[in-house]
């Protein structure tokens, strides 16, 4: 597959070289519209065309090139066994979740490839956080990790908000943004331990369902007539609605695991390291089969530096934001 991708005539590919979390990345696709859509969602900065990229992600639709489908033909597979086979061969893989979809990477070169039959085979969840699986592979090689987490902060210092879908990460982020806190992302952020725990912005979008939007006074009117995504959530660039609240990077001082509690006061409760590791391992990269020992090691290292608390959320966005602010300020003292 990589050989085939390498030999696609350049005039059949649309390509850009951009910096994502400071990393020079070449992105190519056979479909100009999809490339443009993905670039609208990723937080990138332009680079000169002559920049030598550190990684490359190809988004190739076989039909655009007249290629046949790349089908998995063997009977019976188990994700973790398949994952082990490709890992032993020096590759990463996130296939097969559905037919005709291959998402693969080369561990040594930083090259990653989506090989799909057709645009319609692109997983709906991928466009919400484009390239999150290959970006996780690429960051992992650099002591980083794309984590399924949100973030809130003050003046470049902040916390991760981790937990399964529906636990309240995005709602907590939105509550913070509406009350003066900043963020580097509400769904996936890049966490690295190179200079201590830091979180960096990878995506431009914040997502929230109608109920969450309604909890923030005036937000619904400011969003206007937007359509919801495949999850029934509104997606918007928070920079436009909360000017100055979006940061590229913040130093981390703790991890909060939100859960919907109710009442008028949020409550914080310490979580044991094993409990935190278990939960954060599952948050490493969402749908990617990332439950590998290297991922576990990263989470262990992260929890050695960051205290973890369960946060039972009140129903008051202002109170939630105030609790997060107080937590961060206490950690800074």
């Amino acid at each position, binding site marked *: 597959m990589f050989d085939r991708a390498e030999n696609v005539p350049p005039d059949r590919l649309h390509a850009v070289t951009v910096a994502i979390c400071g990393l020079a990345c070449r992105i190519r696709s056979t479909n100009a519209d999809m490339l443009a859509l993905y670039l609208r969602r990723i937080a990138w900065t332009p680079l000169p065309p002559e920049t030598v990229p550190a990684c490359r992600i190809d988004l190739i639709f076989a039909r655009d090139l007249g290629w046949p489908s790349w089908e998995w033909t063997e009977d019976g597979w188990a*994700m973790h066994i398949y994952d082990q086979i490709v890992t032993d061969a020096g590759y990463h893989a996130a296939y097969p979740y559905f037919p005709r979809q291959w998402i693969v990477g080369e561990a040594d070169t930083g090259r990653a490839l989506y090989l799909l039959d057709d645009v319609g085979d692109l997983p709906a969840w991928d466009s919400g956080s484009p390239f999150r699986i290959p970006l996780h592979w690429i960051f992992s090689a650099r002591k980083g990790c794309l984590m399924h987490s949100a973030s809130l902060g003050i003046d470049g210092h902040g916390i991760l908000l981790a937990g399964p879908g529906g636990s309240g990460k995005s709602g907590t982020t939105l509550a913070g943004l509406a009350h003066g806190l900043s963020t580097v992302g509400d769904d996936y952020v890049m966490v690295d331990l190179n200079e201590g725990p830091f979180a960096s912005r990878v995506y431009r979008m914040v997502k929230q369902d109608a109920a969450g939007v309604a909890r923030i006074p005036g937000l619904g009117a400011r969003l206007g007539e937007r359509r919801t995504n495949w999850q029934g959530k509104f997606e918007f660039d928070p920079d436009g609605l909360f000017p100055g609240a979006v940061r590229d990077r913040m130093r981390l001082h703790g991890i909060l695991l939100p859960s919907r509690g109710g009442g008028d006061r949020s409550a914080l409760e310490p979580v*044991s*390291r*094993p409990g935190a*590791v278990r939960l954060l391992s*599952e948050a490493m990269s969402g749908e990617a089969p990332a*439950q590998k020992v290297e991922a576990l*090691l990263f989470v*262990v290292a992260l929890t050695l530096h960051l205290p973890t608390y369960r946060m039972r959320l009140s129903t008051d966005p202002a109170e939630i934001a105030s609790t997060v602010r107080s937590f961060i300020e206490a950690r800074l003292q």
Partner: protein
Amino acid sequence: MTTGQLAIAAPKCVADDFNGEIVALNLESGLYFSLRDLAGAVWRDLVAGHRAEDVVRAVSDSDPALGGEVGALVDRLLAEGLLRPVATDVPATGDITAAAFAAAGARAILVDTYDDMRDLVLTDPVHEVDEEAGWPTRREDT
């Protein structure tokens, strides 16, 4: 005292350097370790291919007592299953840094050991994991 070249005892041990702190995980014992300051420097020298006795000697030359502690650390890293002897010597990369590290004042051999995740780490990857999620997510019926 341990002598010769050592390497990370893969596959039973995985370890990485996080901004100077070595985090090492023994997948057989379920213990994990944090090595900081001089302990981290010694680890880096050893996995860079420097012979154990050369690392100990480099520290002992300026501080024999501290050299003894470094020797004890090396023994412990083997005993804990984090490092193993190398059968065939390979060229070391870079210079030994532990002595300069100690001379600069970072003389503490900080090794923290944790056993609070043994259940998680020792999950049988074949029989006990959730097949969809993979290791280390344990199946609910185990």
